[in-house]
């Protein structure tokens, strides 16, 4: 004979409510968490691509092709002054003609007088990687005082991306906490409703000598099953969306801008979402019922 539960859960309204809610919550949590994981991996890649140096170009000819030798001198002086007073900049030096020569040799040959070419002056800036300068601010300062200066934009762009991704990870963490809290409150509410509905039965079982554990565990196991069911469905539903999104990111952006391939550990983290949801549901329900019994019976 299959043992029927002492508490008539089958006529609970929350019987559908909890699985549906956990499905939705786990769906959302898994999606945003996978987003955060992609952001995290991408940050790792981007950080590797940022070297410890930075280059600033000062053009020697203006847009109309007119030589601006005089202006270049003061531009370089001003730029270097700004650079060396910027926090996180270790040093700034103008590349000498010899250095320019060796840099350009592969393209123009050893014996070309490069001073006759319309090459910009390059300022090599070494950056403290542990305490990098605020590039956005630096760019603003330069453009204000040396309008002609051009800051190596790849690095700036990556830095902005990293900032964006870091912010996104923080936001995801906050949303995850909120999701967990609201799930817990919903489960507490559903459990309390069910306790009220079944009050006479619970009072009777209690009066027959059932320990609090006997009653709490029945509720907790039921919650665990309901949440696990909803969570697994919610998790599976994210899979096509995640692969679709990964495909999209790789299609519309350059290769390797986003690191969408999840590692083994990251998959484990994602898989833990439905499990954690079910365990949380178990514990929350158990505690809710125990407290109720202590308080009212």
């Amino acid at each position: 004979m299959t043992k029927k539960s002492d508490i008539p859960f089958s006529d609970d309204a929350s019987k559908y409510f909890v699985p549906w809610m956990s499905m939705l919550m786990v769906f959302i949590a898994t999606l945003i968490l996978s987003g955060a994981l992609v952001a995290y991996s991408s940050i790792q890649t981007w950080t590797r691509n940022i070297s410890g140096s930075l280059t600033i170009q000062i053009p020697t000819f203006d847009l109309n092709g007119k030589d601006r030798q005089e202006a270049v001198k003061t531009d370089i002086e001003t730029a270097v002054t700004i650079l060396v007073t910027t926090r996180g900049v270790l040093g700034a030096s103008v590349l000498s003609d010899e250095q320019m020569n060796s840099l350009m040799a592969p393209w123009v040959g050893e014996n070309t007088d490069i001073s006759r070419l319309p090459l910009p002056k390059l300022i090599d800036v070494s950056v403290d990687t542990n305490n990098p300068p605020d590039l956005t601010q630096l760019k603003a300062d330069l453009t204000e005082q040396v309008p002609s200066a051009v800051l190596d934009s790849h690095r700036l762009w990556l830095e902005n991306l990293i900032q964006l991704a870091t912010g996104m990870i923080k936001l995801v963490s906050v949303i995850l906490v909120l999701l967990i809290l609201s799930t817990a409150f919903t489960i507490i509410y559903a459990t309390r409703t069910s306790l009220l509905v079944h009050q006479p039965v619970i009072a009777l079982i209690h009066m027959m000598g059932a320990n609090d554990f006997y009653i709490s565990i029945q509720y907790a196991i039921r919650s665990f099953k309901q949440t696990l069911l909803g969570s697994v469905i919610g998790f599976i539903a994210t899979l096509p969306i995640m692969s679709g999104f990964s495909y999209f990111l790789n299609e519309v952006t350059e290769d390797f801008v986003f690191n969408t391939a999840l590692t083994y550990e990251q998959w484990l983290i994602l898989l833990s979402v439905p499990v954690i949801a079910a365990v949380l549901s178990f514990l929350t329900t158990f505690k809710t019922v125990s407290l109720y019994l202590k308080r009212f019976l």
Partner: protein
Amino acid sequence: MKETSKLSSPIAEFNGVSFRYETGPDVLKDIQFQLQPGSFHFMTGESGAGKTSLLSLMYLDNLPTKGRVRLFGQAVDTLSRKEKARFRRQIGVVFQDFRLLSHLNAFDNVALPLRIAGTKESEIRRHVSELLAWVGLEKQLRAYPAELSGGEQQRVAIARAVINRPQLLLADEPTGNVDDTMAKRLLYLFLELNKLGTTVVIATHNQNLIKYFGFPRLHLSKGHLELLGTSNNKYVDLATKLLNRGEQ
């Protein structure tokens, strides 16, 4: 259990007990009595006299407003939650309104105290079927309370109260819905249990039963209790004789 080691101590002991519901008047006033282990009592008193209330103090549903109740040698107001639960598992109760679980069939209703006590399913199957057969419900094992007559429900409630062989059996009007023949048969069941050591209290209005079995009476009137009848043993002996006769 440490309280059973004190063989001489009463199963239940009321000392100056008064009781009232919330803000109402006292329904029990200065109650004083003891139930010796293995005793068998009827409880009488007109409707509203406080029988159910007095029983509820013994099955730990209520606490006295005044005075002290001791069960199995221990003051009930000093019991922890765990101890209370353990005590309750030693007490079988037949409720006046049965309180069967409507979503469980007769079998599962009777099995409930055993499941709460953690008994093995194989044992549960054997004991429950046997007992339900004894109360004449072998054909209704799978019937839900709503599909049973009043008397049948009452028998399920009685089976549930005794399945565990409790140390103390409290039956509130357990034969109100059955004819006298069945009432006697059910009382024999309580007597069997009593012979095995269970202390029994049966609240009843049935004068035939009271006369027939002749156990001492805890009589309530206007909240006061008096003990009517004499030495308990004599009645148990008489009842045993009756029981043997009834089984021939």
